[in-house]
């Protein structure tokens, strides 16, 4: 079986969970004899994927788009910028340091299959980076200042001056048969300068480039991950006469709720309608796809994500600093992640466990409101807002926490609880998350049920028998949540499509 997979990123250059998921899934599929060409907008040369052919899309558009300098943000962003703490996440358009390019070039010559070509396609869009979160990241200080200034000018401006209608957009995204005509259009489209670096243009550009890159190749099916690759998937599937599988890791609705970007929703729908089969990362996402897009449930298969089987991290002993037990929230502080329910639950917990400490690690557009709410509730003393954590700081946060809480309002899957579990931490997850479907050894709660959430936190803090039983069994449980199980479910889905 030979398939083409369309992704948006691949480790190590990743900004979200999508790249990691694609890596885990393709390794497990390759183990089952599936031949995979994996196409991303851009390769850096550091990727390591001996199990498949990793392809970078050739550019159909001008190779580098000059940043538009004339627009100055109307948002009072500057005050909100924290000191730049890191250059992560690395954006695809970050100028690649010369030494890195050289190193990558050497590696390419040395041991990267001939298929891998270093093609620099401007691809700013990141899997879970809609316009709003993009601005959050900037405000949160995750971008270096210089990069930030550049980006504010080019992308973080209030969206698109004159948004074209969804239909127009999709005509561009949905590449017409004649490349030449489209290339002209695409150029004109960028030349206009209104949204040359707009994410929709990137999606369209990727579609064109991807279609060119694999022209003439034969595939049994095309598998596209999330909406950014759907137009490319449709185009290639049409040209190659191959069936299309679209894989939904996250819906626009998950990220934005009622504030969903209608254009993204339209692209999602187009992919869902065109696809022969839809794969959802959870039953939760399956039913959300059905509700939001009216896609028939029969058309949607559920394949839960896995995690890398790595040894559980040697947990720090339960020694706590001078403070009381720590309850951890870790993630973007946005509507989707439900931070206010965490704060409300905290206030209730403190009545029973007055020395508990609550850490809200992360940043996002709701952070100021959360800080205000904490103050309003008079629990400032018990709260910490350390901002974005990275690498070792995340490890440390998990290791010193007594409880990890993921109160998400809408979470297609949710990998963080599994990380907490691998650190021997007991977790509470909202029932509105995909991961809650597969976990037995976690406490579950409706995100809005703050009384129950508080009760669960209190119980975990006060009852060592509860904590130990959960941790012990969870340790065993996560060993079984691996990508091989996902591939085992996916291969029959492929087979049924190819046979049909």
């Amino acid at each position, binding site marked *: 079986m030979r398939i083409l997979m369309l992704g948006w990123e691949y480790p190590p250059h990743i900004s979200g969970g999508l790249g990691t998921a694609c890596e885990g899934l393709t390794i497990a599929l390759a183990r089952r004899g599936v031949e995979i060409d994996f196409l991303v907008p851009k390769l850096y040369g550091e990727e390591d994927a001996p199990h498949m052919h990793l392809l970078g899309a050739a550019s159909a558009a001008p190779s580098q788009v000059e940043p538009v300098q004339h627009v100055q943000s109307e948002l009072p962003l500057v005050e909100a910028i924290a000191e730049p703490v890191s250059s992560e996440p690395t954006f695809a358009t970050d100028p690649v340091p010369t030494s890195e390019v050289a190193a990558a070039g050497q590696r390419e010559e040395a041991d990267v299959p001939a298929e891998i070509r270093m093609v620099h396609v401007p691809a700013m869009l990141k899997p879970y980076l809609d316009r709003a979160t993009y601005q959050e990241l900037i405000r949160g200080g995750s971008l270096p200042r210089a990069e930030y200034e550049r980006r504010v000018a080019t992308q973080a401006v209030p969206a698109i001056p004159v948004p074209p209608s969804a239909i127009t957009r999709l005509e561009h995204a949905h590449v017409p048969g004649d490349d030449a005509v489209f290339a002209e259009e695409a150029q004109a489209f960028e030349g206009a300068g209104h949204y040359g670096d707009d994410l929709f243009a990137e999606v369209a550009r990727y579609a064109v480039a991807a279609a060119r890159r694999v022209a003439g190749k034969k595939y049994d099916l095309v598998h596209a991950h999330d909406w950014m690759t759907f137009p490319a998937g449709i185009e290639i599937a049409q040209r190659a006469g191959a069936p299309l599988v679209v894989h939904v890791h996250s819906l626009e609705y998950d990220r934005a709720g009622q504030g969903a970007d209608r254009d993204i929703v339209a692209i999602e729908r187009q992919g869902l309608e065109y696809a022969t089969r839809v794969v959802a990362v959870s039953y939760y996402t399956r039913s959300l796809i059905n509700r939001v897009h009216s896609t028939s449930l029969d058309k949607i298969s559920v394949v839960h994500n896995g995690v890398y089987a790595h040894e559980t991290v040697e947990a720090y002993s339960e020694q706590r600093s001078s403070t009381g037990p720590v309850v951890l929230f870790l993630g973007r502080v946005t509507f989707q992640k439900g931070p206010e329910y965490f704060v409300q639950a905290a206030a*209730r917990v403190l*009545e*029973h466990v007055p020395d508990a400490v609550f850490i809200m690690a992360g940043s996002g557009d709701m952070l100021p409101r959360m800080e205000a709410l904490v103050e309003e509730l008079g629990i400032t003393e018990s709260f910490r807002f350390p901002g974005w954590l990275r690498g070792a700081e995340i490890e440390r946060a998990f290791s010193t926490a007594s409880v990890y809480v993921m109160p998400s309002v809408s979470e297609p899957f949710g990998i963080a609880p599994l990380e907490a579990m691998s650190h021997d931490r007991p977790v509470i997850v909202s029932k509105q998350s995909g991961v809650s479907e597969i976990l*037995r050894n976690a*406490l*579950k709660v409706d995100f809005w049920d703050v*009384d*129950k959430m*508080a*009760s*669960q936190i*209190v*119980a975990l803090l006060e*009852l060592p*028998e*509860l904590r*130990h*039983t*959960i941790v012990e*069994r969870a340790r065993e449980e996560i060993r079984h949540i691996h990508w091989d199980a996902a591939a085992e479910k996916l291969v029959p889905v492929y087979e049924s499509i190819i046979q049909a």
Partner: protein
Amino acid sequence: MPSVCFYFEVHQPYRLKPYGALQVGRDHDYFDDKLNAEVLRKVADKCYLPANESMLRLIERTDGRFRISYAVTGVAIEQMKKYAPEVLDSFIRLAKSGAVEFVAETYYHSLAALYDKAEYKEQIDMELDLIKREFGQTPRVFRNTELIYNDEIGQFIADLGFDAMICEGADDILDWRSPNFVYHVAGREMRLLAKNYKLSDDIAFRFSNRGWAEYPLTADKFAGWVHGHSGAGDVINLFMDYETFGEHQWRETGIFEFLEHLPELLFNHPDWDILTPSQAIDRYPALGELPFHRTVSWADEARDISAWRGNAMQQRALAEIYSLGPAIRRRNNSNLLALWRRLQTSDHFYYMATKSASDAEVHDYFSPYEGPYDAFIHYMNVMKDLNLSVFAPAEKRAGL
């Protein structure tokens, strides 16, 4: 002349309501009255009423040659009176048929045998009084909660004066012996009737299992298996949860038709009859002593007590409730005593079990909660409130 002996467990716990940490100190109603009423009415409609009707009809049709025995727990009877009195009436009709024996157990279906022998005896006495009062019988035979048994428990029950006790016929206990004979307790004369778990579970667990090689199980086939033991045993003990009829095995599975036809088919073989436990021990001699080298029950694959105290949560909860005993008794307050005892019912701890695979399915099936962790959290919050609301004020009053 070999015999078949039927015994059915009838029990309903007082389930706790979901009791969160925030309710502690504010809410002193612990039980989920609405749920308990619903469950009792549902089981009454699906099992108790139709099954009792079948039993009564079979007894009449066979002129009392079809005989059965029950243990009905005190907490089940209390709830029948409250939520479905017609169920108790139909058990009383069965009692009057002359073909039904009531077996004793603990009123609260508790694990007191393992924790507090004085309490254990009181709960047995309460049940004896109840059976006398409701059904006009004085039980000679005893069955412990979920057939939990070891030599010490057997000797304790023997010393209370019972003539026989019902136990699980676990393989490692019986060893080379057959379950189809009467034995006696190690060091005592009291008889033991061991469950033939294979034939019992063919009905109770496997009856509607389409993956089972013997599916579908007809009364004819089953009677044939029983008759196959002719000459190789005295009494085949078929012990099971009464809810097998209509609740665990739904009506649609044909379980009532099976029951309807079984007695006549058993009687088709002229050598075989059906006895109650007391009749069985009166007719058949004890073949020898049956010592138990471990504590056995009829629950889960392991047939031990891990269903109730297999993990740290269960052990903590049990330690907590039984440690309150002396303080509660000192109060001499009957309401408080009843409350404490309802919290001893073994089901509370059964819901906290963290078993895997097929055992977990069974536990989940019975549990009213989302899982063992919730069950433990609710229970421990109730314990906390009980401690706070009952003891703290008193200690203050006492100037402590």
